[in-house]
């Protein structure tokens, strides 16, 4: 495996005690940090070119490093941009530097805001995706599924599997996640059963999602890959948007991702996962409180108006409490369902989607993409039409099966 060079464009990391954590996360994937060289005289020029005239010298230096990078003065395969959480100036510059690099090069980028509590483990999935995008360019170029392959997506809430043959999905499996291996085997069996195929006929299969490493150890798939890369491929395939820019919003049971991709390959992305209020779990609890199934929540929300319900918090505890209070005061269940969808959408919109460029088409995938009320509210917030492809909840499994084509014997 070739060593990947990741240009670190950071402000505050050394003084937040997180530099070693970043280095550890980068080193785990056989990558190393590089610092693009900058002449003192380049700094003001770079700030002028980017046009964002910030006061903090380290952010100005970040601009100059970005310029050095796009002018190919630094030999970098990927870029990691990070600044302190809650720093407005840092957030502004981080975003503009990311945009500046993305518009002028094909180098994959991720941006992140850290606190002193950020650990290497928090960064692993991001770094795995970043290094994969840089390292496996040939594999990621696969656009067509060939032969007989399968994919398993072991999510924190549900486990999905698909069997594909000659660019078509011929079998699906979907089970709630209990034990990772047990659920994966069950989902895989269901997909095989629908396809009418025996496991030994499968030419190659891949695993992704939260439980992928465990599957890797026990079920010996041909490859194990994080969900940013895999889901991008899956989204591009399912929505048939293999060329050009697209945005993928993936709201899962526990965490969510927003990916800005080019030709089906992730460019910049963000991952949630700190707050349960911005996840499918919030909607599950809301539907339970409403006495409806999760499948019924979306259509119910479409009939309601969130503006009729007062919610004071995004929190899975206090926000749900607000909804319960409103129900006890006689609020319409449809309005409450709409408020639940609005709460999740708005939090994702405020906290995650600001970090990437929303370029149309916007493709929504993951389990929550089946909740029509949520998709509608997200459309209203983004003011764009959102595509929800068929089989959108199987996104990871489809992406894994597609990429498995590259591993056929």
């Amino acid at each position: 495996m070739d060593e990947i060079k990741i240009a670190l464009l950071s402000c505050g990391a050394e003084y937040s005690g997180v530099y070693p954590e970043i280095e550890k996360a980068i080193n785990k994937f056989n990558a190393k940090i590089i610092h693009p060289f900058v002449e003192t005289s380049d700094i003001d020029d770079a700030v002028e070119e980017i046009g964002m005239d910030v006061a903090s010298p380290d952010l100005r230096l970040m601009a100059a490093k970005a310029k050095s990078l796009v002018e190919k003065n630094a030999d970098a395969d990927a870029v990691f941009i990070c600044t302190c959480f809650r720093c407005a100036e840092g957030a502004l510059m981080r975003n503009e530097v990311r945009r500046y690099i993305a518009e002028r090069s094909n180098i994959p980028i991720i941006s992140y805001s850290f606190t002193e509590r950020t650990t290497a483990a928090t960064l692993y999935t991001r770094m795995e995706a970043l290094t994969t995008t840089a390292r496996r360019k040939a594999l990621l170029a696969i656009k067509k599924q060939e032969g007989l392959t399968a994919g398993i997506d072991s999510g924190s809430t549900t486990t999905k599997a698909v069997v594909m043959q000659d660019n078509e999905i011929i079998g699906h499996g979907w089970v709630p996640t209990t034990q990772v291996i047990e659920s994966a085997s069950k989902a895989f069996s269901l997909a095989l059963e629908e396809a009418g195929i025996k496991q030994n006929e499968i030419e190659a299969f891949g695993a992704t999602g939260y439980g992928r490493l465990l599957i890797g150890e026990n079920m010996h798939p041909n490859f194990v890959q994080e969900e940013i890369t895999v889901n991008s491929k899956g989204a591009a395939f399912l929505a048939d948007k293999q060329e050009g820019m697209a945005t993928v919003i993936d709201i899962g049971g526990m965490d969510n991702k927003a990916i800005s991709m080019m030709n089906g390959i992730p460019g910049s992305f963000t991952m949630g996962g700190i707050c349960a209020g911005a996840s499918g779990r919030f909607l599950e609890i809301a539907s339970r409180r409403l006495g409806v199934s999760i499948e019924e929540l979306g259509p119910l929300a479409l009939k309601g108006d969130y503006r009729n319900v007062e919610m004071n918090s995004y929190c899975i505890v206090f926000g749900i409490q607000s909804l319960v209070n409103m129900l006890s005061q006689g609020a319409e269940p449809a309005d409450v369902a709409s408020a639940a969808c609005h709460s999740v959408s708005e939090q994702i919109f405020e906290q995650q989607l600001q970090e990437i460029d929303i370029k149309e088409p916007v493709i929504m995938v993951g389990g929550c993409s089946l909740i029509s009320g949520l998709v509608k509210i997200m459309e209203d917030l983004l003011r764009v039409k959102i595509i929800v492809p068929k089989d959108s909840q199987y996104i990871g499994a489809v992406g894994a099966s597609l990429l498995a084509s590259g591993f056929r014997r």
Partner: protein
Amino acid sequence: MSKITKIIVSPYYLPIIPKLYEKGFDLIIKETCYGVMISGEEKDVKDAVDFLRKEFKNSVFIKDRGFPPGEKVRCRADRGGGGRPGFHQLEYEISMLPNIEKALNEIYKSDKKTIKKKKKRIGIDKLQSIIKENVPL
């Protein structure tokens, strides 16, 4: 006693290293692209600083350095290229050193204990031309 490191900077070439070797200081001496680093016991470093200030007077500028010479976590060769964060500031300050040197030379020449700031009056010719340019006839 603990070991300390200082960096000696001059706006132009001076035989700092030969002089230090000549005096036989018990120090680690390292030349870098922006100055000479000396590292050793505090007393030896202080003696060397006193000697250099005496020898080169106002042409050398000296400050402490946190990292010992060649420290891996800070050295460009080991940390993945790029200058140290402090490098750019040093480079910027070095550009001012010739004027600071001249200022120090002048101060030390002066007999006065304290020199008061004096604003220079604008010359009559300059004033006349400003009036001509700005006041319509």
